[in-house]
């Protein structure tokens, strides 16, 4: 069998408009996509699993995926598994913040220096998961 090297990981972020944790997800995922691992990651809007076509639903078969959720409803992980394919890793923001001894921000927007440690901690964990996923692929 031909051995195809996996060079990209798909990041699927909770968007969590209702909760601050959703904003943390979006900010942290964008940081990974734009700054920390720009050449190793791609993303898809989660609702495109419903609103898009076959190509979007095949996302998880094209890329190993990492889902990042803001609450224990785990929308990103469940939607990816149900509509596209099983994620390689599923991260949960409250678990990451607890591990780092950080509190969940209270605001849903206008993030700045006060929220920076939270965004950085989550982004670093996603980047680590990207590296681990690529090493295993």
């Amino acid at each position, binding site marked *: 069998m031909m051995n195809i090297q996996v060079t990209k990981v798909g990041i699927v972020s909770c968007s*969590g*408009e209702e909760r601050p944790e959703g904003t943390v997800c979006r900010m942290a995922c964008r940081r990974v996509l734009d700054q920390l691992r720009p050449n190793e990651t791609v*993303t898809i*809007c989660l*609702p495109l699993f419903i*609103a898009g076509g076959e190509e979007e639903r095949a996302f998880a078969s094209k890329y190993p995926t990492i889902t990042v959720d803001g609450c224990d*409803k785990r*929308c990103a992980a469940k939607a990816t598994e149900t*509509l596209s394919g099983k994620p390689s890793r599923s991260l949960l923001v409250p678990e990451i913040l607890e591990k780092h001894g950080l509190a969940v921000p209270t605001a849903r927007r206008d993030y700045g220096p006060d929220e920076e440690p939270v965004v950085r901690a989550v982004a670093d964990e996603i980047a680590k998961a990207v590296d681990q996923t690529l090493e295993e692929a």
Partner: protein
Amino acid sequence: MDRTTPRKVVILPCSGIGKAYGALARETAYELAERVRPEKTALTCLPLLVINDPDAKKLVLENPVITIDGCPRDCARKSLEAVGATVAQACQAIKFYMAHKDLKPEGLAQLNEAGRKLAKVAAEDLAPTVDRLAAEE
């Protein structure tokens, strides 16, 4: 219908993290829900509809919903229709910009100053629609 809670207008923005107009849709929703009409509106996470969350479904089935989409894929509107709910008003964020071309939204994780101003203006423009929908039986 026997209603135990006051009627709210649900604002359902695009949850995209890849386009400035997705960020504009979300920021407009926050402006409506937090500043312009906090007493008449409710936010819910779009991905909750993607996983068929019963509480989110109940909210959008029992209340009028304004969708604000960030691109022509119309994820918010389609995800709402996929759970059997009716769209009271479907908006495209790009049309906010077409109506106010002096305010060019830029930014993915967070909007630039012009984008934030545009979101304020767009929320004010949508306020009469919220008032009308909230008053309807």
